[in-house]
């Protein structure tokens, strides 16, 4: 274990640059701890975002040595064997300042993919009985642990290339809802994800699946949507 880390951090907005800091290496140290150290002890003007510090809020994702990662749960030992770190803001999202990005587009696309439950019952009704082992119920688990960290969104080439592309997280959420027997909005959702920028824009590059910190599989979810929308189209249930 080196005694010191050489840490290059992105400073400024889109037109910023990397600046290098020396941070003491500690045994228990996450990438977020490294960033915090710089802000607390070297340069108090450093901006970044975090909240839960244990991998549930998805606020702290950054580009670490070229790959998007959740920083609060990424141990330094895992990514900086040689004592070097380069930490930048997430890609594919506008930079607010330093390491913080604006996630607005990510959530707008979540809505565009109709990633919102459409109720078929009310609060006065009993809770629907659903067997936990039915195939649809299992498929509905696809996105249920998504922490909307944007790692997949930042990792995806298609997002980079196609401004309209809804992105892996939003589509995975849509897939969960398509399989949710309680949901009343499936037709409109299939329509939404079959449009330009929808699931068919995905090239199955699988970076999303490779890097998702929650080990979700957006590639499979999107493939599911591709099949489901295709079937719906062939049956005339949705317009092209």
């Amino acid at each position, binding site marked *: 274990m080196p005694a010191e880390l050489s840490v290059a951090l992105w400073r400024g907005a889109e037109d910023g640059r990397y600046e290098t800091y020396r941070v003491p290496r*500690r*045994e*228990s*140290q*996450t990438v977020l*701890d490294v960033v915090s*150290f710089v*802000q*607390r002890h070297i340069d*108090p*003007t*450093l*901006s970044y*975002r975090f*909240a*839960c*510090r*244990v*991998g*549930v*809020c*998805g*606020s702290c994702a950054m580009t670490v040595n070229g790959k998007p990662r959740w920083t*609060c*749960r*990424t*141990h330094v030992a*895992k990514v900086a064997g040689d004592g070097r770190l380069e930490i930048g803001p997430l890609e594919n999202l506008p930079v*607010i*300042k*330093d390491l913080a990005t604006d*996630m607005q587009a990510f*959530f707008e696309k979540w*809505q565009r993919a109709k*990633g*919102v*439950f459409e*109720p*078929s*019952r*009310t*609060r*006065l*009704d009993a*809770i*629907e*009985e*659903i*067997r*936990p082992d039915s195939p649809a*119920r299992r498929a509905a688990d696809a996105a*249920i*642990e*998504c922490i*909307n960290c944007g790692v997949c969104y930042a990792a995806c080439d298609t997002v980079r290339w196609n401004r309209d592309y809804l992105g892996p997280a939003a589509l995975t*959420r849509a897939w969960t*809802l398509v399989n*949710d027997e*309680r*949901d009343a909005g499936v037709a409109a959702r299939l329509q939404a994800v079959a449009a330009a920028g929808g699931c068919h824009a995905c090239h199955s590059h699988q970076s999303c699946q490779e890097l998702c910190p929650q080990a979700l599989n957006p590639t499979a979810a999107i493939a599911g949507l591709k099949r489901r929308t295709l079937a719906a189209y062939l049956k005339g249930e949705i317009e092209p």
Partner: protein
Amino acid sequence: MDIERLKTDILILGAGGAGLFAALHALKADPDLDVTVVAKGLLGKCGCTRMVQGGYNVALNPGDSVERHFMDTIEGGKWLPHQELAWTLVTRAIERVQELENEIGCFFDRNPDGTLHGKAFAGQTFDRTVHKGDLTGIEIINRLMEQVWARPIRRLEEHRAVALIPANDGALSGVLLIDVRSGEFRFIAAQAVLLATGGGPTMYRYHTPSGDKSMDGLAMALRYGLPLRDMEMVQFHPTGLLAGPDTRMTGTVLEEGLRGSGGHLLNGAMQRFMGDYDPKLERATRDVVSRAIYAEMRAGRTTRNGGVYIKMSHLGPARVAKEFKGMVDRCRDCGFDLAGGLVEVVPTAHYFMGGVVCRVDTATERHGLFVAGEDASGMHGANRLGGNGVANSTVFGGIAGDTMPRWIAANPGHREPDHHVLDAELARAQHPFGQAPGDLNALREKLLDCMWHDVGVVRDRSSVERGLKALDGIEAELLATGVADSDRRFDLTWHDWLNLRSLTEISRVIALAALKRENSRGAHFRSDFPEPGELATSTFTVARQGANGVNISASPVQFTHVKPGETLIRDALAAE
């Protein structure tokens, strides 16, 4: 100073379970109202509702009853809860869980036959905790967040509320905010405001809540003159991860199930010590285990980093890795082997039972101000049951959302702010820019240690008095420590300063209330008064800002539903 002014009908401070439910209910009650939600971080991605692991208590399953849930809550709270509030909590939780599942879209775990699964949680006589795996909070808050995004609700993300601004007659006029991204101030005038910033005792060396929580809401309420109740009641979770002082991971919670399923606690000498404290061993309640670990620490029988070990490996590493996947992964990510090795743990400040005094409909003493969630008080008394936290924030958040439109209909109109207060608050928030920059971190460390050692798991008169003195010093130092005014955009260091100020102020109230309560109930343990005292004459503390500091008084608990020594459960059974 010229600042931007905006107007809205309903302003909600906080985007946790309480804030988001309030927004949805308010808009539903009156779609013509302009509803605005303020969050210190990103909507739904900050706060503690998201961090809920265990689940949500609700008496829905056959064999359970609201009376049983109520009695568990009252007994868990050591007879201090406000019984009307607790009753509302347990009865309305049913509708709220159905709303979460049927309208919001949460998909809670089921039994093999398809019915809702309730899991066992410590301190309860029925397995009533509804959950989604051990990441229940993500499911709840993500679904709420989607629903809010889907509606015409204004979002002020990364905006920090710094002060409640009264009108000349004392009713609430609006709220002063800092736009974190631009560093600029905004004053939002509102007809009704909900305070739902979610407490969060992060002034302790070891703590579980989200980093954005710093008791701002209670600090604002105190300054505004509102009474705060049960402020001595800080709940400690016995098993926080201990990974040394250099990582933010330290203090984060390792779930209760580890002990429940047979994990052992070992001290630094590798001895299993719980037998010295309680016959239930590791399965004793949170407060008992926390105090036992604390005692070992005080006796110096600690591990390398000053805590104790939790050992799971005797259950079979494979089984542990499967049953507690989330926890094992989390430990592995920070370099520890929970399934096969030893992990250091320490009690960690988890939940704050104290808060603003409120009515069942969430109204406070002041016109136009409502409160819900962890900022409100009275539902839990001396102890919160695991699973009653989200129940509280969602039940009362929804009630606030129902109440505010009605209140506005009866009391329409915006009120002009008191400009003296507004100016004073602007100056207050910019105070650090007038001082020479200094070492905020050392100060934070001091505060964390002071509260941990002197006003923590176990207290007595002399420790609390020592703590109060230290707090005076910390506050004076803080006021003399500045932040460079170079770039206010996304200036975390400025916000660290503001966080410290809120924390210091509320720490003092905690200490004063701890001094006032001369007995030991639930989360509050005085080694100089270890007995709970007479239950029938129980009192709760009320703190209020006076001209010469904070005054603490004691008020008798009203036993409106059940008296100590009685239970509602038998009646319920007889009625069936």
